C-alpha cells in the first residue's frame, strides 16, 4: 500500500481512469438505454429522467424507482429504497480512504459523488497494483457518468433500445468486468477461506433476499471472517 504522502491527483491519472473505463462504459450503455426505455413507458419525461441520471447516478436504484413509479410519486418509499440498495457504498467508499484521504476535502468529496460499482472496482484494482494517482477514480467515474447520462436520455428519446441485448451477451459485461478484476487480486491460499465464505453467503442470500442485500451479506461475511482470522 502506498505511503500517504506519495498519493497524487494529476491530469495523467484522470486520463488513465478515462481510458480504463471506456470499454466497460461501452458495454454498460445498454443498461442506460434499457432504463431510458423503461422510464418512457412509465411516463417520466425526458427532462425528469435526465435530472434523475444527473443527480442520483446509480443504476440499480434508478431502475427500481422507475419500476415503482406512479402518481402520486411515493417519495418516502423511493428515498428509503435508495438508501438500502446503495448501502454497499458505505463499505466501498471506506476502502477508498488510502487514495482520497490525502488529496484534500474538495477533491475527496467530489470524487465520492462519482463512485459507482464499476469505477470503484477499477480503482481498487489500480490501488492493489500500487497505483498512487487518486484522480484515476474520478476520471473513470466521470466517464461512466457522461455515458450513463447520454444513454439514459437516448434510450428515452429513441423508444427502441438494442433489440435483445442478451443475444450479444451484453448483460454479462458487468459480471465479466468484476471477474476480470477479481482474478489478479488473488494473492495466495490465504484468500481462499474469506472468498469462499463470501461466495457461499452471497449466493445463498441472492436466492432468498430481495435487491442488493446479497452484496452486503457476502461482503460483510467474507471480509469480517478474514479480519477476524488475521488478528486473532
Amino acid at each position, binding site marked *: 500500500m502506498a505511503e500517504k504522502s506519495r498519493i497524487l491527483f494529476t491530469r495523467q491519472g484522470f486520463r488513465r481512469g478515462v481510458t480504463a473505463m471506456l470499454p466497460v462504459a461501452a458495454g454498460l450503455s445498454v443498461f442506460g438505454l434499457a432504463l431510458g426505455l423503461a422510464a418512457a413507458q412509465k411516463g417520466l419525461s425526458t427532462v425528469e429522467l435526465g435530472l434523475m441520471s444527473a443527480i*442520483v447516478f446509480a443504476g440499480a436504484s*434508478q431502475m427500481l424507482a422507475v419500476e415503482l413509479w406512479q402518481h402520486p410519486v411515493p417519495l418516502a418509499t423511493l428515498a428509503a429504497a435508495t438508501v438500502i440498495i446503495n448501502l454497499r457504498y458505505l463499505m466501498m467508499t471506506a476502502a477508498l480512504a488510502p487514495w482520497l484521504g490525502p488529496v484534500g476535502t474538495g477533491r475527496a468529496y467530489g470524487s465520492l459523488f462519482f463512485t459507482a460499482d464499476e469505477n470503484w472496482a477499477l480503482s481498487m484494482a489500480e490501488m492493489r497494483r500500487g497505483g498512487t494517482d487518486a484522480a484515476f477514480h474520478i476520471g473513470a467515474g466521470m466517464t461512466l457518468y457522461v455515458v450513463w447520462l447520454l444513454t439514459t436520455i437516448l434510450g428515452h428519446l429513441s423508444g427502441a433500445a438494442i433489440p435483445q441485448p442478451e443475444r450479444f*451477451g451484453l448483460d*454479462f459485461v458487468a459480471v*465479466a468486468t468484476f*471477474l*476480470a478484476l477479481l482474478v489478479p487480486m488473488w494473492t495466495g491460499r490465504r484468500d481462499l477461506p474469506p472468498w469462499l465464505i463470501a461466495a457461499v453467503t*452471497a449466493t445463498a442470500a441472492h*436466492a432468498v433476499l430481495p435487491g442488493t442485500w446479497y452484496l452486503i451479506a457476502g461482503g460483510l461475511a467474507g471480509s469480517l471472517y478474514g479480519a477476524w482470522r*488475521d488478528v486473532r
Partner: protein
Amino acid sequence: MSVDLMTALTILAMGAATYLVRAGGFFVIRRVQAGPFLTAWMKHVPGAIFVSLVVPAVVAGGPAAWAGGGVTATLAALRLPFVVSLGAGVATVAAVRLLMPVAP
C-alpha cells in the same frame, strides 16, 4: 418537457440519499482511529465484495454464464489484458446462447 414538483422533490431525495451513503463510509473511516481489526477488515473488503458481485450472477446465469465466466477467469489468470478477458467472456456468452437457445 415538464418537471412535476413532486417528481423533482423525489429525485432530489434519492440523490441526497445516494450521496449520503457514498460519502458516509469515507467520512466515518476518516474519523475513527483504525486499529488492527479495522485495518485487516478494510484489506478484505474489496475481494469479498468482488466475489459477492460475481459468484451469484454466474451461478444463476446458466451454462452461458458458466462458460463465459470460465473463459474470463482463465484469461485473467493468464494475465491477458483486461479488455481481452472481458471481451472473450462476453463473446463466449453470446456464442453459447446462439448454439443452445433457451425458450424465453
